[in-house]
């Protein structure tokens, strides 16, 4: 087979792939995606699990280690037939949360933590780089096989150039079809279709080689079985640890490899496709493995000793002269390598751009997402650059490692690295208690052990880890030897690294989760992930939506592209029953928009951008505590204010009462002044009038006498009034001379009643007394006391408005105090006036008929104060009631 034809066929094949991808993309755009999204295409796209490592490496693996190679395919088989457990849930979560990558899944689950996103991204890039290098190497090697016919022999003119051209071509293809649109939910129809075609090519190629070997070279099934038992492969020793361990790690890897996650979850168009894939994908794997052992056995038999068993798939047809079959096999290997590289590059580029480049770009820009700038362009550009960078890394690794190591070893190292995500992933979707602290601890631990025990030693003796460290441990610490941790020697290095990394990873993940406390967002996401089947709506609602729909639209346009964003907004507005492009920024709408954006830039970035716009950045527990603290302070302060204001109110009330009293008194005084002027004026007027009459000469004597009598009476009245005023003034100033004597209370009361009886003598007035209780001696100023009694009884006679007025006098002795109550049966004194009656000049009614000047009770109060007792109004007795309290013996 001329080498040039090979190159031409490869180029032609690539052109066909471009065509397939282009047509698929165009049909999808035209809405004819129907059969593009069939379960068959989904299953075939999963076949990127079978890379060049499978296509070439499985045969080599079988030639070296017998049936052990099957574990790599049996593990995924178990995962797929058990799809009801994990796959179904993963796909549902991926679709509900619009997850863009495995890093996004972890980041989103653990509170949209970007730190975890970065961590998983770095791990994925590191673990995938050797794998990509492996694909480049396999294609280069296969070119080399055909080039062995050329004069240069096995050594191609420039093997590095082949790999470089390949890497460049893959970069171009991936960028062309992988970054055409941004939203992951749009899916890469072109690429998925191209991968499906490649899946068919590689399956057909391997089956064709297998059939050729079994029925062409060997003599059928029975002959092959006999040859197997006769061959060196039959001497393989099943190592239980490796058998179980490799089955486990391949089962883990199919869930956690970034490229598998991409086709399995992100590119999934319909959950029911998983059901089909549950049997179709194991079938594909089985068919891929079916002829591996026969090819290996026959290859070992007929090929010259020392030929590379990794290339038997090519070299057997070539040596048998079947050039076209060899070409098909070459295309199969080429397909395996390219499809893996393309999807891996897309998956890694998405992660790098969403979790590292875009957040960095957002953080470095001082402005917010509101600021002008083409986010969409930035994201696309960063994704393209990332694709280039990922392939450049793979090429560099290939170039540095020199393409020497066996294919299988590199693949397994990559698997163990990818499997480190498993505890955080499974824990995240089944256990609400898993926290980002636990996840980060587990990931770092597992990844560190993987690096130290497997990845770095894989560069060979004196590569990145010196032989001395390998043999004696770092700094001579024996139990830290990379391939004999904790002094357990003799384990297979791969198994050793797998065991310790997964064990300690899981342990730290569990302990970290148990010991830490998740934030609110993390808890919401935890519920959303674990209970994905119980709910339809997304969590993490935007409670306050200060975001303006217009701002959101302008931001979304820059990420989703104007057309896409406008369509989404219009649909949302229509769903809210509004016309136009601007729906109300309800929490529901914002949550949906966030998920939509998450499909393009990842959950963490999307959340951060929405948070910037909606003003409510993520609410952390600290924030809540701070808010609660402030609220508490405000509450205390307001309680203090309330207390103060109560106090002020009380003071104000007291002041108001005092003021009211003053005002009342002032009114009373004015009234009294006018009254007293009147009182003084009336006798004066009559005195003047009668004096004028007396001055007449012809007045009869009896008249003169009468008038003189009147004048005399009036003068006495004036004098009494002035006496009262003087008396009060003296009493108030406590300058009264007391004249202490002893008297029987009964006698005093009797005198008072008698003296008062000339007040309104026309009235029928009954005084009820209990003489027995009244007999007691009092030592006091008896004249003054009598004056008080008279005043009270007269008042009762004057003011009691009952039809049959009755005054009851009760005397009670309480220790050294005697209480004398005067209770009548009138209507009493209104409550509002009770405080005023003892004031000077107080008079409750218009006092024309009262004849007094309103000084009586004021004088009484002063007298009683002088006698060491008191006089009070006694409310609630059915009429006016006064209580006079008097010490039996006045204190000297």
């Amino acid at each position: 087979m001329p080498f040039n034809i090979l190159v031409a066929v490869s180029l032609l094949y690539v052109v066909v792939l471009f065509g397939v991808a282009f047509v698929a993309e165009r049909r999808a755009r035209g809405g004819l995606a129907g059969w593009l999204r069939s379960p068959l295409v989904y299953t075939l796209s999963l076949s990127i699990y079978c890379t060049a490592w499978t296509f070439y490496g499985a045969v080599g693996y079988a030639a070296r280690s017998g049936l052990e190679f099957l574990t790599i395919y049996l593990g995924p088989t178990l995962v797929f037939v058990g799809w009801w457990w994990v796959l179904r849930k993963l796909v549902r979560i991926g679709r509900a949360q619009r997850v863009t990558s495995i890093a996004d899944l972890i980041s989103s689950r653990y509170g949209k933590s970007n730190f975890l996103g970065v961590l998983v991204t770095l791990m994925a890039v590191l673990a995938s780089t050797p794998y990509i290098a492996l694909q480049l190497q396999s294609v280069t090697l296969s070119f080399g096989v055909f080039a062995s016919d050329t004069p240069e022999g096995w050594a191609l003119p420039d093997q590095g150039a082949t790999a470089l051209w390949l890497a460049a071509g893959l970069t171009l293809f991936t960028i062309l079809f992988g970054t055409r649109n941004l939203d992951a939910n749009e899916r890469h129809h072109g690429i998925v279709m191209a991968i499906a075609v490649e899946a068919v090519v590689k399956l057909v190629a391997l089956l064709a080689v297998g059939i050729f070997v079994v029925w062409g070279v060997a003599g059928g099934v029975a002959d092959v079985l006999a040859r197997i038992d006769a061959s060196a492969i039959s001497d393989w020793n099943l190592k239980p640890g490796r058998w179980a361990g490799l089955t486990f790690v391949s089962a883990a890897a199919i869930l956690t490899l970034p490229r598998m996650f991409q086709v399995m979850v992100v590119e999934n168009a319909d959950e029911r496709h998983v059901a089909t894939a549950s049997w179709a994908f194991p079938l594909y794997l089985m068919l891929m493995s079916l002829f591996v052992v026969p090819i290996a056995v026959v290859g070992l038999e007929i090929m010259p000793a020392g030929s590379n068993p990794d290339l038997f798939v090519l070299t057997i047809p070539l040596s048998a002269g079947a050039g076209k079959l060899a070409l098909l096999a070459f295309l199969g290997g080429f397909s395996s390598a390219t499809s893996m590289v393309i999807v891996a590059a897309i998956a890694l580029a998405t992660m790098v751009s969403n979790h590292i480049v875009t957040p960095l770009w957002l953080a470095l820009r001082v402005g917010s997402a509101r600021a002008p700038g083409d986010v969409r362009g930035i994201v696309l550009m960063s994704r393209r650059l990332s694709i280039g960078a990922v392939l450049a890394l793979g090429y560099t690794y290939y170039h540095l490692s020199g393409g020497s190591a066996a294919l299988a070893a590199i693949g397994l190292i990559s698997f163990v690295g990818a499997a480190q995500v498993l505890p955080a992933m499974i824990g995240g979707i089944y256990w609400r208690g898993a926290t980002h602290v636990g996840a980060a601890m587990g990931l770092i631990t597992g990844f560190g052990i993987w690096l130290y025990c497997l990845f770095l030693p894989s560069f060979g003796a004196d590569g990145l880890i010196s032989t001395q460290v390998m043999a004696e441990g770092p700094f001579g610490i024996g139990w830290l030897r990379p391939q004999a941790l904790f002094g357990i020697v003799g384990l297979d290095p791969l198994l050793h690294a797998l065991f310790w990394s997964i064990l300690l990873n899981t342990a730290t993940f569990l302990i970290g989760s148990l010991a830490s406390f998740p934030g609110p967002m993390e808890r919401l996401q935890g519920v959303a992930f674990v209970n994905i089947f119980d709910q339809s709506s997304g969590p993490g609602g935007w409670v306050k939506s200060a975001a303006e729909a217009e701002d959101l639209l302008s931001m979304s346009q820059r990420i989703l592209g104007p057309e896409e964003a406008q369509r989404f907004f219009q649909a949302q507005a229509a769903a809210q029953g509004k016309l136009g492009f601007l729906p109300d920024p309800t929490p529901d709408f914002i949550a949906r928009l966030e998920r939509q954006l998450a499909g393009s830039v990842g959950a963490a970035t999307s959340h951060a951008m929405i948070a910037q716009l909606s003003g409510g950045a993520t609410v952390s527990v600290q924030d809540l505590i701070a808010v609660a603290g402030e609220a508490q302070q405000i509450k205390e302060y307001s309680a203090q204010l309330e207390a103060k204001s109560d106090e002020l109110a009380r003071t104000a009330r007291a002041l108001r009462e005092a003021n009211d009293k003053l005002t009342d008194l002032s009114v009373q005084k004015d009234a009294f002044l006018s009254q007293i002027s009147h009182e003084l004026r009336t006798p004066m007027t009559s005195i003047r009038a009668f004096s004028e009459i007396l001055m007449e000469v012809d007045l009869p004597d009896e008249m003169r006498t009468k008038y003189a009598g009147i004048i005399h009476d009036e003068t006495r009245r004036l004098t009494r009034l002035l006496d009262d005023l003087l008396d009060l003034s003296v009493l108030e100033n406590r300058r009264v001379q007391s004249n202490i004597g002893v008297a029987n209370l009964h006698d005093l009361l009797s005198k008072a009643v008698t003296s008062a009886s000339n007040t309104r003598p026309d009235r029928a007035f009954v005084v009820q007394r209990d003489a027995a209780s009244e007999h007691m001696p009092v030592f006091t100023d008896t004249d003054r006391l009598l004056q008080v009694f008279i005043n009270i009884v007269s008042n009762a006679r004057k003011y009691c408005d009952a039809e049959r007025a009755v005054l009851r006098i009760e005397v009670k002795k309480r220790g050294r105090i005697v209480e004398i109550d005067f209770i009548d049966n009138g209507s009493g004194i209104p409550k509002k006036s009770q405080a005023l009656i003892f004031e000077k000049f107080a008079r409750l009614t218009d006092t024309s008929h009262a004849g007094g000047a309103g000084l009586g009770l004021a004088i009484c109060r002063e007298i009683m104060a002088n006698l060491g007792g008191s006089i009070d109004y006694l409310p609630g007795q059915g009429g006016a009631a006064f209580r006079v309290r008097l010490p039996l013996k006045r204190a000297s």
Partner: protein
Amino acid sequence: MPHNQPLFLARRSYRRRRMMDAVRLLPAFGAVLLMLPLLWQPADTPEPDTAHGLVYLFAVWLVLIVAALSLSRGLAPALLAPEEPVSPGTEADAGGEGGAG
């Protein structure tokens, strides 16, 4: 049994529920069969029997595929209508699957 689940299910729902059980058990069943070779030391047996082992593994593989095929056929309607009113138990089942995970 949670009180909100009906005690007696329609025949079809009952079948579907048991199929869900079966599909959950399938990987465990497969794992046991695939781990059986651990008991087997091909290099030490008097007669070379790697070929038999190969045939056995592929037979198990095929059984798993056929079982998964028939179960996925039966469960496809359950995926279509996970919230169908007749089976409030599907959600309870789905929520409870963490228990044995």
